[in-house]
C-alpha cells in the first residue's frame, strides 16, 4: 500500500480542533475500503496531539488538541500543516499491522406480527409477498459503513433496490428498540426506543449498544451484517437470555 492508493486524498480543517481526511466523494465500497484502511493505519500507533479518529462514509476525522500538538513540537502558528504532514506520512508508510477486514455478524430478526407493522407496505410497493420480502432481506449481506447518529446505530449499505420504500410522512412517536427498518434506500436497526419514520419490518432481540462491554456496540464500521429470520418464540427466548 502506498500513497497512490490514497490518490486524491484531501486534508481539510474542521474548526480548530479537528482535521477531515477526505478519501472520496461517493458512498461506495471502494471508498469505504480506503476509509477503513486509512483509519486503521492512522490508529495503529498514537499520533502526537490526536485524541480520536472517527471514520464515516468518505472521511476519517482526526480530532486533536492543539495544546498537546504544540507540546509535541508543532510550531504554534503551523499546527494544521504540521499535523497534516504527519497524517500524510503515516498514510505513505502505513504500519504493517493495518488490517482492513471486519467480521460478519448474524442478526436474528423476527419478521412477524406487531414486530413488523410495515412489512405489508414494503411488500406492496415492491410488488412482492411478505415472505419474498423477508427472503430478500435475509439473503442480502449488508455493509456497516459507519456507526453514528446514536450509540450503536449502524448505517447499513446494500439494501436491494426493490425493497427501497419511502419514509412515513408522519414519523411514529416511538419506535421500539431493536426495530429493523427501511427508510428510502437505507436499512438499519434502532438501538433505542426513539421517534422514527422508517418502515418497520422486524425486530431483533440483540442489544446494539452494551456500554459495559468492549467494544460497546454490536456492530463496528467495516463489519458485514446478515439477518436471519426467527420465530416469536425464539425472539423471546433470546431476549430473556440476553
Amino acid at each position, binding site marked *: 500500500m502506498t500513497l497512490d492508493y490514497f490518490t486524491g486524498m484531501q486534508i*481539510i*480543517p*474542521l*474548526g*480548530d*480542533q*479537528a482535521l*477531515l481526511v477526505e478519501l472520496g*466523494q*461517493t*458512498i461506495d465500497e471502494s471508498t469505504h475500503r480506503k476509509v477503513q484502511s486509512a483509519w486503521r493505519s492512522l490508529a495503529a500507533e498514537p499520533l502526537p496531539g490526536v*485524541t*480520536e*479518529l*472517527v*471514520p*464515516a*462514509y*468518505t*472521511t476519517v*476525522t482526526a*480530532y486533536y488538541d*492543539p*495544546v498537546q500538538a*504544540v507540546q509535541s513540537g508543532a510550531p*504554534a*502558528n*503551523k*499546527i*494544521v500543516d504540521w499535523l497534516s504532514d504527519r497524517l500524510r506520512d503515516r498514510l505513505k508508510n502505513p504500519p504493517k499491522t493495518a488490517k482492513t477486514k471486519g467480521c460478519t455478524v448474524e442478526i436474528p430478526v423476527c419478521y412477524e406480527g406487531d414486530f413488523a407493522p410495515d412489512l405489508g407496505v414494503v411488500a406492496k410497493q415492491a410488488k412482492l409477498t411478505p415472505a419474498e420480502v423477508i427472503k430478500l432481506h435475509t439473503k442480502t449481506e449488508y455493509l456497516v459503513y*459507519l*456507526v*453514528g*447518529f*446514536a*450509540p*450503536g*446505530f449502524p*448505517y447499513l449499505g446494500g439494501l436491494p433496490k426493490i425493497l427501497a420504500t419511502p419514509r412515513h410522512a408522519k414519523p411514529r412517536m416511538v419506535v421500539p428498540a431493536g426495530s429493523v427498518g427501511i427508510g428510502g434506500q437505507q436499512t438499519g436497526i434502532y*438501538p*433505542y426506543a426513539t421517534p422514527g419514520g422508517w418502515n418497520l419490518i422486524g425486530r431483533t432481540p440483540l442489544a446494539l*449498544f452494551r*456500554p459495559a462491554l468492549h*467494544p*460497546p*456496540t454490536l456492530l*463496528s*464500521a467495516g463489519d458485514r451484517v446478515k439477518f436471519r429470520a426467527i420465530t416469536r418464540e425464539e425472539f423471546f427466548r433470546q431476549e430473556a437470555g440476553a
Partner: protein
Amino acid sequence: MITAQQPGLLTTVQDLGRPGYQQYGVVVGGALDALAARTANLLVGNEENAAVLEMAQTGPTLSFSRSTLVAWCGADFDAQINGEPCPRDRPVRVAAGDILRFGLARHGLRAWLAIAGGIDVPLVMGSRSTYRRAGLGGLAGRALQGADRLSCGHPSEWSQQVLEKLLASNQRATTWSVRPDTIGRPARVGVVRAMRGPEWEWFTEPAQQAFFQATWVATKDADRMGVRLKGPGLALAQPREMISSAVNAGIVQVPPAGQPIVLLPSRQSVGGYPRLAAVAAVDLRHFTQLRPGDPIRFEEISVVGAQDLLLAQARDLTRVRLGLSRLLA
C-alpha cells in the same frame, strides 16, 4: 453526603466528557462550558476533570451533611447559603447542615458547581458525564431528582487547608476570585469568533456575507446538543447532496430551511447538513448562556488565530493553577 432537596430544572453530573467512543456513536458531551467547569474545580482544589453539577435556568437546592469547600462559575444565579448570598468564582465554605440554594439565573442560563473531592459517581466508558440520550453516566444516566444523594471523593490537601483558613478567620468565602471570563483572550460581548467550515464554498455569496454581518437571534430550539439561530436565510448556490460526515462541537450546520444550528458538546457524532462555519473553541461557551431572543454575531477568524486563542487560554490556566498552588506556600 449531599442531598438534593430540589433538583432544579435540569441538573446533571458532568466532567470534561467521554472522548474515544465517537466511532461507536457515543458523543463526547461533558460540561457545556469546559472552562467554567475547570475553573470551578481548580477553585476547590480538584483535578480539572473532576465531576461537577451542571445546572440550567433554575438550579438545585442542596443540603450538606459535612463541611466542605464548593465553588461555582457560570451564569448569574441567585445563589444563597442559608439565605445569605453565596458568591461566584471563588472557594466557599459550607458547614454541616448548610443549605445551598441556587434559585433562578438572573442573566445567562447555566452554571457549574464544583465540590471538593469531585462528585463520586461510577466511571462509565472513562467518564462520569451524564449522557441522557443513552441513559448512561452520572446518576444512572439521568438528571438530578429530588432526594438524590451525592457523595464526593477525598478533598485534596489544598482544599482542606483553604477550608481551615476560612474557618479560622470565620469567613464564608475568600476575598479573591478567579473569573473564567478573564482567562485567555475573551471575545467582545455578543460577538463570537468563527472560521469558515468545510462546505463554506457551497453557499451563495450573499449567504456568506450575511453570516458574518447579520445579528442572529437565539431561538427556544436549544439544548445540550445545539442552539438553532434565527436570521437571514442561508442558501446553497445549488442543491447538493451532503454525505454524512463527522461534526464537532462548534460546527455551524445549515439544514435546508436555511437557519443555522450551532452544535454544542452533546451533538451527535455524525451530521448530514452542510457545515458553513465553525465557532472558535474558546468562544463556544457563549452559546451555552444564550436565552431565546438573545442576539449574537459572528466575526471571522483564521484557524491559526483560533488556535492562538486556545494556546493563550491554556497558558492562562497554567498561571491560575500555579497561582492557586502558591497561595498556601
